[in-house]
């Protein structure tokens, strides 16, 4: 488990820089398809995933780059995946939202990953392995029925699964008030699942709460939820932001996890760290760019 201030900062900065670079490559046309930047939400991935062990499982969604990098994934492999290269995480087959590496998985159908994560939690429970599943969903994804089917079963069967709801208050263009009735915490509780809600972008606030909740999942074997109120600073995917620009600017001023946590660091630590990451990102995209395109090699299975 990593936890030093500079390490936390480094991972968040890595995510930030990766996403900035990816968006830049899109505007120059080097990337095609689409991408969903994690910028603004970095403290969530880092705060939660820092508490996981290598046997634990992470299921992620369309906005998976931050989770993947916090999980320890290679920026170069991710960049290559975005560019559709054979050196990508899954050889260019999946692209931005469909990746798998070690115990990390993502898929592009909202909600569908939730029972997948529960199945892995069940597997762990059957074997007595002690590992847990963490599944990341957004506020909007609470619209999907299968999420509740899974909550019910996870609670009934006491599965070691952590539901992480990143409430960034929007689903694409839809504000959370138009998408969620009642309360998110209340929903989990209605299914007998303990839910802890945070309103912060400070990784140092998320980290210990996640530690505690995850610890409880490990010790009791029961499911639990963390609701992380957060903000995305960029468009939903590439350019589709219908939110008020001033409002987004204010959010950024107030809730930037890098700013918040960065203040805790000495410039002497921060600058070399940033420089190292900058170089890493440059190299990642450079190598990705020059990698080969994939082919089926006559293997259509």
């Amino acid at each position, binding site marked *: 488990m990593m936890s030093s201030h500079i390490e936390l900062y480094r991972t968040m900065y890595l995510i930030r820089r990766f996403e900035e670079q990816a968006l830049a490559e899109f505007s120059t046309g080097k990337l095609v398809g689409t991408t969903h930047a994690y910028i603004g939400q970095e403290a969530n991935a880092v705060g939660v995933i820092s508490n996981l062990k290598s046997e634990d499982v992470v299921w992620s969604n369309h906005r998976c780059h931050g989770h993947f990098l916090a999980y320890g994934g290679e920026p170069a492999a991710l960049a290559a995946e975005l560019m559709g290269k054979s050196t990508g995480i899954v050889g260019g087959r999946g692209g931005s939202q469909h990746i798998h590496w070690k115990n990390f998985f993502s898929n592009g*159908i909202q909600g569908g990953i939730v029972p997948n994560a529960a199945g892995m939690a069940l597997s762990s429970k059957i074997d007595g392995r002690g590992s847990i599943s963490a599944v990341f969903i957004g506020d909007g994804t609470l619209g999907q029925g299968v999420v509740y089917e899974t909550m019910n079963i996870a609670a009934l069967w006491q599965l070691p699964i952590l539901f992480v709801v990143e409430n960034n208050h929007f689903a694409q263009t839809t504000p959370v008030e138009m998408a969620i009735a009642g309360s998110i915490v209340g929903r989990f509780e209605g299914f007998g699942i303990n839910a802890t809600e945070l309103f912060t972008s400070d990784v140092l606030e998320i980290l210990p709460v996640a530690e505690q909740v995850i610890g409880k999942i490990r010790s009791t074997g029961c499911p639990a939820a963390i609701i992380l109120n957060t903000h995305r600073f960029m468009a939903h995917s590439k350019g589709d932001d219908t939110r008020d620009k001033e409002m987004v600017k204010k959010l950024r001023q107030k809730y930037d996890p890098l700013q918040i946590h960065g203040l805790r660091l000495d410039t002497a630590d921060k600058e070399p760290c940033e420089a190292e990451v900058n170089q890493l990102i440059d190299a990642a995209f450079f190598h990705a760019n020059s990698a080969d395109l*994939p082919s089926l090699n006559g293997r259509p299975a």
Partner: protein
Amino acid sequence: MTKTVTTVLESLNEGLRTAMRKDPNVILLGEDILDPYGGAFKVTKGCSTEFPERVFTTPISEAAMLGIANGLAMSGKRPVVEIMFGDFITLAMDQILNHASKFHWMYNESVDVPLVVRTPMGGRRGYGPTHSQSLEKHFLGIPGLTVIAPNSVIDAGDLLGTAILESTGPILFVEHKLLYTSSIAKIGQGDWVDFSLEVDGAKYPTATLGFSGVTKHHCTIATYGYNLELAKKAAVELAYNDEIFCEIIVLSQLSPFDLAAIEASLKKTKKLVTIEEAGLTLGWGSEVIAQACEGQPDLLVKRVAAIDLPIGNSKALEDVILPSEQKIVQSIREMLKLN
């Protein structure tokens, strides 16, 4: 309407808005369909501004959306549902197959369920395995369900308007993503200079494209939707390089199957190639060919479709998996033993 409509997207948007103007019972449901966004592909743009009380942006709940549309349709409304990507229609399959499509017959024809599910399908945009599929084939042949696909040679907006205003049962309206930016074909001009066009009078019309001035066509190409664009290019190449003239039949009604125009063409050509973007196995073309061969035993037949694989994200993978002008030309040459 004074604005000149030049793309299929504009035509669909116009058709949708016209339908809303004509019938106050038309209700839109879908994710992120409100202005200024107007839907992920902008087909609903302007609707919520003009008819704020009739456009409902929904949570991410494809099954409930369809189920609510069923209820609306059975109580006097004409709901139009947008599924943001056709890939997500799997989530609504139960409401489509076991609810919307069944009610009319199951309730002894005592109810109608006039609803339209619009959704973009298709690849070639690098969206990856869950945002690039052509899943309509899984919905063809469902009793009670009509499946429609616009193309560039008929009026897509009219087609949508007819589906919305005149349907008595559920309709799945499949829009290929690349069709949105396709220009509306001007037969005899530009790309289409060699072609003549006949459109039958069906509610959801079938178009027959032939080479102008050619008296005998050698082969029938049957297709729908965006794949007409590929078919056209292949036909031109075969005409110029091989002096093989293909008659192209473009259906807008995919299901129930009505293959009269294809059969008429086959009487002359005895050769049939179907083109579609879905995976080959049990695609639209399988039914077309099965019916054609049941009717006429002496045909040469061939299907061109995607390889039965997920659609890879990389353009390099899309290119090998999906059908192309080259694959069509190749298939026809093989069938005609021109290689």
